[in-house]
C-alpha cells in the first residue's frame, strides 16, 4: 500500500503565469482546495491553497476599491504561491501511513506526490479517508464485529482459528490497542456468513478472554 497506488493521478494543476482570479475560480469549479503550480515537464514550482488565496489587506499597496480590483486582476499565481522549497511533498514510493504522518505532523491538508521533481499526483486528507473506508470495506453487506481481546501475542490467531473453523469469510480486518485499557486490544472484523448475530456473538465470546463489544449488520 504505497502512495502511488492510492493518490489521485493526473491532478488538476496551474501554471505560474495564471492569474489568481483564474486560480480561485478553477478551484471552485473542479472542487479541490489545493492546486500544485507546475512549470515545463510538470516540475513542481509551488502550491496554491485556499489559505494562500486569502490575501491580507495589509499586503496591498492601496485600499482604494478601484485600485484593489485592478491590482488583483493583474496579480499572478507565482506571487502568492508557497514556493517549491517550502512545500512539503511525498515521494510516490512512500507508504500511505508515512504520508498520513507527514500531514498530521505539519498540520496540512495535502501533499503533492513527486517522482524526482515531477508532480505525478496529489494525496489529500480526503484521499486517506477514502482509503480508510476501503480498508475497512464499508458499504458491503456483512457483519461488523468489534472484539476486545487481551493485548498479547497469539490472541488474533485464536480469533482467526475460530472464524475459520466456522467457515465464515473474512472481508477485512483492522486492529489497534485499546485507548482506555492498555492491557487490551480492539479488533474489528467484517465477516460474511449466513448466521445470526447472536450466534456470532456467542461463538466468539467462547474464546477465552475475548469479548464482543459491538456487532451490527452493514449494507
Amino acid at each position, binding site marked *: 500500500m504505497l502512495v502511488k497506488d492510492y493518490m*489521485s*493521478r*493526473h491532478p*488538476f*494543476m496551474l*501554471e505560474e503565469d495564471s492569474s489568481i482570479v483564474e486560480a480561485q475560480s*478553477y478551484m471552485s*469549479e*473542479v*472542487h*479541490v482546495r489545493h492546486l500544485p503550480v*507546475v512549470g*515545463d*515537464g*510538470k*516540475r513542481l514550482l509551488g502550491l496554491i491553497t485556499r489559505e494562500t488565496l486569502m490575501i491580507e489587506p495589509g499586503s496591498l499597496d492601496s485600499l482604494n476599491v478601484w485600485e484593489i480590483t485592478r491590482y488583483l486582476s493583474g496579480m499572478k499565481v507565482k506571487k502568492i504561491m508557497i514556493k517549491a522549497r517550502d512545500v512539503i511533498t511525498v515521494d510516490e514510493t512512500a507508504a500511505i501511513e508515512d504520508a498520513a504522518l507527514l500531514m498530521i505532523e505539519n498540520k496540512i491538508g495535502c501533499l503533492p506526490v513527486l517522482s*524526482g*521533481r*515531477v508532480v*505525478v499526483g496529489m494525496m489529500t486528507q*480526503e484521499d486517506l*479517508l*477514502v482509503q480508510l*473506508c*476501503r480498508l475497512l*470495506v*464499508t*458499504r*458491503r453487506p456483512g457483519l461488523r464485529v468489534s472484539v476486545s481481546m487481551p493485548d498479547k501475542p497469539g490472541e488474533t490467531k485464536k480469533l482467526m482459528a475460530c472464524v475459520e473453523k466456522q467457515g465464515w469469510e473474512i472481508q477485512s480486518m483492522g486492529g489497534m490497542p485499546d485507548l482506555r485499557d492498555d492491557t487490551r486490544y480492539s479488533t474489528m472484523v467484517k465477516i460474511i456468513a449466513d448466521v445470526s448475530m447472536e450466534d456470532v456473538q456467542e461463538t466468539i465470546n467462547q474464546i477465552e478472554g475475548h469479548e464482543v463489544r459491538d456487532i451490527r449488520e452493514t449494507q
Partner: protein
Amino acid sequence: MAEPTRRKSEDIPVLDIENLAVAYKVRGGEVEAVQNITLDIKKGESHGIVGESGCGKSTCAWAIINFLGANGYVKRGSIKFQGKNLVGKKGEELRRLRGDQIAMVYQDPMQSLNPSMLLGDQLKEVLTVHQGMSNSQAEKDCIRMLEKVQMPDAANVMRRFPHQISGGQQQRVVIAMALLNNPALLLMDEPTTALDVTVEAAVLDLIADLRKEFNTAIMYITHDLGVVARVSTKVGVMYAGEMVERATVEELFKSPQHPYTQGLMRCVPKLGTDRSSSILYPIPGRVPPPDGRPAGCVFWPRCDYVRKRCREERPKLRSIAGTETWVRCHFSEDIDMGSWEPPEDLVVPGTVPKKEVDETILEVKGLKKYYRVRGNSLKDVFGMGEKQYVKAVEHASFKVPRGKTLGIVGESGCGKSTLVKTIIGLEHATDGEARFLGFDITNSISARDRKLIQELQMVFQNPDSTMNPSYTVGQQIARPLKRFNVMPKEKITDEVLRLLRSMRLGEKYYDRLPRQLSGGEKQRVGIARALASHPDLILCDEPVSALDVSVQAAIINLLLEIQEEFGTTLIFISHDLSVTRFFSEYVCVMYLGQIMELGPAEEIYAPPYHPYTEALLSAVPIPDPTAKQKRVRLQGVVPSAIAPPSGCRLNTRCPRREMLPDPDICLTDPPWREVHPGHHIYCHIPLDELRKIDPVVSIKEVNHAG
C-alpha cells in the same frame, strides 16, 4: 468492489467536449467539418470513436490540440481539459499542455519518429528537455518504459534507428514515448490500422493494460468495430461530422439505437457465427461531403426508416430513458433492429449453394520463388561470396476447382502476394509446377500466349496506383477489350456500358476520370476492367482492405455476385480472417513463405487448428464485446526470410511447441497431416492432440446484428 465514496473532483472529466463545431475556411466561404459533438472522458476511461472515413473523427481529435492548420478553427462550443477551456488558449500554453499532459499516437509511427536519430536519444529527449532529468536517469526510465510496452531487448533498441525495428515495434516506441510524460489524456488516431492482425492484438492488449496502470483517459479513433469492442469502455459513433450515437460498449453492441450504427453492424463479417447467418448488407449511398449535407437528419438519404419529419427537422442528441445511451434520431424507440428486412432490390449473393464441379482449374505443385540478394562484402562485389536468397515462397502446393474461391491469409511478408504474382506471371517461378487449364504458367508474362493472359486477371489493393489518371473510366475498361480482341470494335462501347451497369455504376461514369471517383467506385472500375476480358480466374490482392466497411460489404457482395453469374474462379488474398471466412470455400494459411494449413473454410475455422491458425484467429478483433476469445499470442518477431528457421518455420514462435514430448523435433520438417481429404495441417503435433484444443471463439448469445 463498490466504490465507498465518489469525490466530486473525481467526477470532473479529463476531457469534456460540448457542442463542438469545427469549420475550415475555404474559397468562397467556410465548411463546417464537424458539428454538435458532445462527449466526455473520465480518468481511466477509453472512449472509442467510430465511423466511416470523412466523418470528422480525426478533425475532432485535432481540434483538441488545435492542430487544425491555418484555415481551420473552432467555431462553436467548448473543449475542456481538466476543467480548463482550451478554445482560445495561446500557443505557448497549448504547446506545454501538448508536451506534458496530452499525448498523441498516429496511424503511421514513422511520422512521429525522426529517422536520423537513435531511438534512445529520441526517447530520452522527452525527459531531459522537459523534466530536466539527468541523462543516466532518463536512460533508465526509458528502458523501463520500453519494457512496459513489452519491447523485446529494450536496452538494445535504445541504440537502434527507427528503420531497424519492425512496424509493430515502432508503434510500441511511439506509445512508450507518449507515456513517458505520464499524460492525463492520450489521443490515438487509428494506431493499429497499419499493423498486422497479430501485432495489432498485442498492441491492443497493451493499451488496455496501460490504461489501468496509468489511469490515463484515452480517446481511441478507429474505423474498425472489432477494435472498438476490444479497447473501449464507451463508444461514440460519428456520421457526416455529427455524433449520432453514444453508449457504453456493451449497450452499443447489444442494442444499437441509431439506424446508421445498425447498418454498420450489418456490414461487418463476424467470426464465430456460421457463414449463412453472416450475410453482409451494405449501407446504400455514401457519406455526404461537408458542404453537401442534407437538411433535416444527416442520415436520412441512406436510412431505411426515413419519414417526413426526418427530412425536415434535424434531430437532437437525446438520452434514451433508463440507459446511458444518447442517440440522434427522432424514432429510435420505434425501430426494432430484429425486424429489419433487407430492401427488396438488394441482391444477396452467396446464399445459393454452388454447384459441385470436379474440374481443377489451377494446380500448383511445389512452387518456389526465391529472390537473389546481394551482400555488401568485397567477396560479394566480385561475385565470389555465398549466394543468398530471400525464400519468398517455398513448396506451395494446392488445387483450385473451377468456380470456387481460395482465400490466402497470413501476416505481411508471408509470401501471399509473391505467390499470386508468380501465378499471374509478374514473377518468374524459381522451381516447381503450376498448371492453369493444363497450360504451364511458371514462365513470365512476356512469354505467355495472349489467350492465356486474357484468362488470368488481377484486382489490386490500391485502385489509385493501377489506373492511368488521364484515361477516362470508359477508356480504362475498353482497353483490355481492344487488346484481347474480345469483340468487334463497334460493340466495345456497349460492352463497357454493360459492365459499368453490372458494377452498379451507371452510364454517366463513362466519361469520368479516376480522380472524380470515390475509393469504392475506383475499386468497382478495377473489377470491371479485370472482368472485361471474361477471364476464368481472377486474382484479388487485398481488394477491400483500403475501403470503408460499408463499401467493403458492397464490393464483396459484388464479387460474389459476379462469381455466381459468370462462374469465375477467384483467389482472394486478405489479412482479414473474418472477410476470408465469409468469402472463400477454401482457405490457405501461409507463414514465412510456407503453407501451414490448407482446407475447406469451415474446417480451418474450427479445431483441429494449426498452432499458427489458432494464433491468427485469436488475434482477430471481434465486433462483439460478449464474445469469448482465447488469448494466444505469438512471441517475438517474424524471422528473416533470408535465413528462415530450419524445419517448421514457426518453431521460433510456436505457442504450442511444448505440447510435444520432444520440442526439438520442430527443427525437422513436419509431416503433412491429413484431417479429411482436402484438409491438411503442416505440424509435428499429432491430430488427436490438436483436436483437444478448444475453439478460439465462442459467442454466447445469438447476435442481433446477424
